[in-house]
């Protein structure tokens, strides 16, 4: 079993240095007909004020399930959280009552989803849906909530907000819908914003608009941002630090510049090596061999071992803990030194 670890940044030393949000040794399981799926297996990460943490991973890596656990929107059952803590400003949210939890959800921790069209209700106007935040959480009147909705639509730069507040989601383009989602999520000035693949369904030109908007809102309000994505380009553009997930675990945690210069885990190194590069055009791309793991039948030892070029015998017999390389980075690989040396060449 994986041991718990010190996080990317030192947590000791004064109140000012407590993380805004700390996920500590979180485990999430789902009971299915085929057996228990361990979707998240001892994940720990910290988020500080004004910071952007990118959680990178492919489908099934547990990145979204972790986010849903933070938000408290997992269906339980079938989901179960056997171990772990999620501390928001020092309080473990998993121990709170449902009522206390819903005071935090949406108000202090908010989330943006990937598919804005299915996340919005098609039969209500967007103004009504944005205003709902104020009516429900702040007890505002319909008219005041509407006013607030227009203000927010201006803030996320939807043109002609005054007229468009009466429009329905289908009357907006994909990028504008995502702006509406963002308007709803920042309505109550949350301290933490979780963005789950916010731009995956969008064109690159619109993606650039949305990422710029998110960065600006973050600067204005100094909120902590967790960006869940599989896009190495988006991460490089905006993140301060990064947690790479594979098979329900964090395999590497580091400051963003360190990972791109010298990855310390074979999986992160493989992902970076497989990006097409101009100087290698015409040559075969480096490809990580094999397939992502099946969560119902995880390989013994390190989950990445069947695909790993650094594999030795103990990778199959013994799951690597998250080794601390420096106080800002750690890698879950027995051979992180070799991987680091290999990245330097």
């Amino acid at each position, binding site marked *: 079993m994986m041991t718990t670890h010190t996080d990317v940044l030192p947590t000791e030393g004064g109140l000012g240095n407590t993380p805004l949000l700390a996920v500590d040794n979180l485990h999430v399981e789902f009971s299915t007909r085929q057996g228990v799926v361990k979707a998240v297996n001892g994940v720990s990460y910290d988020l500080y004020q004004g910071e952007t943490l990118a959680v990178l991973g*492919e*489908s099934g890596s547990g990145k979204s399930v972790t986010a849903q656990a933070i938000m408290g929107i997992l269906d339980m059952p079938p989901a179960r959280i056997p171990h772990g803590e999620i501390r928001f400003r020092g309080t473990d949210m998993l121990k709170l009552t449902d009522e206390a939890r819903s005071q935090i959800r949406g108000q202090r921790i908010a989330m943006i989803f990937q598919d804005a069209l299915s996340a919005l209700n098609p039969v209500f106007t967007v103004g009504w849906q944005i205003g709902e935040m104020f009516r429900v959480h702040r007890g505002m009147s319909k008219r005041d909530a509407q006013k607030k909705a227009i203000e927010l639509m201006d803030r996320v730069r939807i*043109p002609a907000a005054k007229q468009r507040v009466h429009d329905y989601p289908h009357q907006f*383009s*994909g*990028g*504008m819908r995502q702006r509406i989602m963002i308007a709803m999520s920042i309505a109550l000035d949350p301290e933490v914003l979780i963005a789950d693949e916010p731009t995956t369904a969008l*064109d*690159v*030109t*619109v*993606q*650039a*608009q949305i*990422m*710029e908007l998110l960065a600006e809102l973050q600067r204005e309000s100094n909120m902590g941002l967790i960006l869940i994505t*599989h*896009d*190495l*380009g*988006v*991460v*490089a*553009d905006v*993140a301060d630090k990064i947690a790479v997930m594979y098979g329900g675990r964090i395999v590497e945690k580091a400051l*963003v*510049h360190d990972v*791109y*210069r010298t990855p310390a885990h074979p*999986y992160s190194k*493989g*992902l*970076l090596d*497989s*990006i*097409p*590069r*101009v*100087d290698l*055009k015409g040559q*075969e*791309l*480096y*490809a*990580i*061999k094999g*397939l*992502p793991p099946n969560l119902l039948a995880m390989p013994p030892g390190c989950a990445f071992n069947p*695909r790993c070029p650094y594999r030795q015998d103990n990778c199959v017999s013994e799951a690597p803990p998250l080794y601390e390389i420096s106080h800002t980075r750690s890698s879950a690989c027995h051979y992180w030194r070799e991987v680091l040396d290999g990245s330097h060449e």
Partner: protein
Amino acid sequence: MAATSEPILEVRDLVKHFALTQGILVRRQIGAIKAVDGVSFDLRPGETLGIVGESGCGKSTLAKLLMALERPTSGSVKINGRDMAKARGRELKSMRRNVQMVMQDPYTSLNPRMTVGDIIGEPYEIHPEVAPKGMRRRKVQDLLELVGLNPDHINRYPHQFSGGQRQRIGIARGLALQPQIIICDEPVSALDVSIQAQVINLLERLQNELNLAYIFIAHDLSVVRHISDRVAVMYLGKLVELGGDVEIYDRPSHPYTQALLSAVPVPNPDGRERRERIILQGDPPSPANPPTGCRFRTRCWKAQDICAEQEPPLEVRPATDHRVACHFAEVHDVVQAH
């Protein structure tokens, strides 16, 4: 690559308008969606032409026209010198054999009730001359082997395969009729990142072995650069820039191409504060009512009066094979080498 040989595919002034009608009893045409509006290019054997552009720019309609799934409103698609738009019956059928497609989503493009053998062998039902009945199983197994799957899995169903393997099945189906041209519509965007490189390598290997010509439609511009010999940039149904990969990526001359390239996140955090970003405002205009003159002028920072009055033709830049449709075209390298 094979620049000296005759083009296998010649597209000339291709136009596809979808009529917009109004009224239930008396249907009147009130306008048209100009999905593809005058597109011309050539494709040679063994060559890859990348097509990039935002959603709604007409990339997929263009693919359907090349497959003869849609009839063009005007213009021509010539395959080996024969016009596909004029062909009917048996002739059309044999021309269609020559152009096959690899779809975007390997989860919805394979029938879950059919075995892999039936899926890959289905094209032989329509074109029995390619493989006589007794030979089919053998042929399908060869195809499975060619795309890197186990030939013994011929009786399995799609759900027993992962996303990357399913895309290989889709590719094998595309190869079954031994086409010369394959249209890849976003072939890797539905796949996990660690699997994408495997499928791109497979496509490149097949191209070298079988001398295939690819039309490669994708929104991941770094993948397009890696695989393409030439790249066409589309905006609202028109090509705005067409050139070799180095010309498009290192010397982009159309403002739209420059904006598109600068919007792509570079997977390298070094120097991100200094990167030049051209962020286009708003969304593309509706193809039902495109702007007069140059279609990009409503979002363009260089637009002058002439752009609203005169439509810029797709002109060759002097001393190159690089075509740009802009009155104020000039080279501006927005992408740092990475």
